[in-house]
């Protein structure tokens, strides 16, 4: 049975892993390759690297660290941030990344999703969606890497998830901004709504604070993977223990190599 994926997310700025609460006040957490290797050895199923400064600054992702990671790490990883055309995606994928994730550039130019899917296959194309509750329902935000530039994309979240799939997205990462950084659990209700319209793999993001939150989101929102950052970086949740516990509760997880 396909295992539920545990995915540490490493926010990258200036070549270092950082974390901020609700996208603000970034703190340096450590070296990219060092942290990536630690998570791979602990049994992470996949890694996501978000270059959170590339997109708001309008520059392409620096691929030198992508290749350093690919040489060292024997699990799949996805790179997000600063991928704005087929050429920048090609550089990232040929440096050894398995997938590219696009967020703001997909909102600016939705045809980019199709261009990437045609060039590399849908399985390489992840669309990241930053969603927040408003009086008009859940809405997509863009430029979320920079609080000064962050603004509404004037798209309804579920409609955008449907559109992204039609255009060729092979996976959706739904980052729920209302729960992100608060550690009170994933936004189950919003993820359930997304699951209902999502035929490609769906990854939950934003809100993990305890092992129980992972179980909840897998069981109740039936997501394919759960992404988290600070709980792993701070070691308040350790992946081997998390996976052993999830396996005990009957969820399919890969934890054979988690020592």
């Amino acid at each position, binding site marked *: 049975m396909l295992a539920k994926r545990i995915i540490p997310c490493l926010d990258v700025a200036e070549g270092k892993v950082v974390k901020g609460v609700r996208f603000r006040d970034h703190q340096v957490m450590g070296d990219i390759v060092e942290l990536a290797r630690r998570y791979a050895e602990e049994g992470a199923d996949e890694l996501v690297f978000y270059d959170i400064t590339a997109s708001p600054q309008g520059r392409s992702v620096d691929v030198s660290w992508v290749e350093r990671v690919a040489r060292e790490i024997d699990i799949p990883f996805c790179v997000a941030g600063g991928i704005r055309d087929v050429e920048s995606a090609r550089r990232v994928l*040929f440096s050894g990344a398995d997938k590219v994730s696009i967020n703001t550039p997909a909102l600016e130019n939705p045809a980019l999703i199709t261009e990437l899917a045609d060039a590399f296959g849908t399985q390489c194309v992840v669309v990241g969606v930053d969603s927040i509750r408003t009086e008009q329902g859940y809405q997509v935000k863009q430029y979320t890497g920079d609080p000064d530039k962050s603004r509404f994309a004037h798209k309804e979240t579920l409609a955008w998830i449907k559109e992204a799939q039609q255009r060729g997205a092979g996976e959706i990462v739904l980052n729920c901004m209302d729960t992100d950084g608060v550690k009170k659990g994933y936004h189950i209700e919003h993820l359930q709504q997304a699951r209902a319209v999502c035929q490609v793999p769906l990854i939950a993001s934003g809100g993990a604070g305890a092992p129980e939150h992972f179980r909840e989101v897998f069981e109740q929102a039936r997501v394919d993977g759960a992404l988290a950052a600070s709980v792993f970086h701070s070691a308040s949740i350790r992946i081997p223990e998390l996976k052993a516990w999830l396996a005990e509760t009957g969820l399919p997880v890969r934890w054979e190599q988690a020592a």
Partner: protein
Amino acid sequence: MSKHALVIVENGGSNINSVRFALARLGVEATLSDDPDTIARAGRVILPGVGAAGPGMATLQQKELVECIRGLKQPVLGVCLGMQLLFEHSEEGDTPCLGLFPGQVRHFPERPGLSVPHMGWNPIRVCQPDNPLLRGLDGRYFYFVHSYAAPVNAACAATCDYGEPFCASAWKDNFFATQFHPEKSAAAGARLLENFIQL
């Protein structure tokens, strides 16, 4: 070039460097090549591939590698799309393939609750007990990313379950293949590549 050298077929697949890096972690420096003579003289050949079947076959034709690959006698390992191209035909783009394994590659049927692409870690069940590539790997998790797969067939070496069993690995004569990505499958993947190097 040493007759024992390992050559990765340069077919434009975006996972080529990942395969190269995985071999380097095992101490093997692979050569990338699209030259039929170099490939024919290699000790071992890996046919990688990420992307669609139609462009994948078109690349092999354009580089005049179709007959070269069909005629190889040394151990060959097809990975992901590289495996699918070893079958007779792929439903993806209605593409005639190399015909080294029997059968057709098909799209996963739509089933409620099963996302397509099949993406993530799934255990394999080895069904050829004497298969040297999969030695020690029954029941281990491997990383899959694909929307097309071959059904269980006469060359099937291992199955994987996604809605129904499909062919996760195949072996016939000197041709081996995996639908999953050993280069991204942690310790289990490294073990498989080591098995391939030691064939």
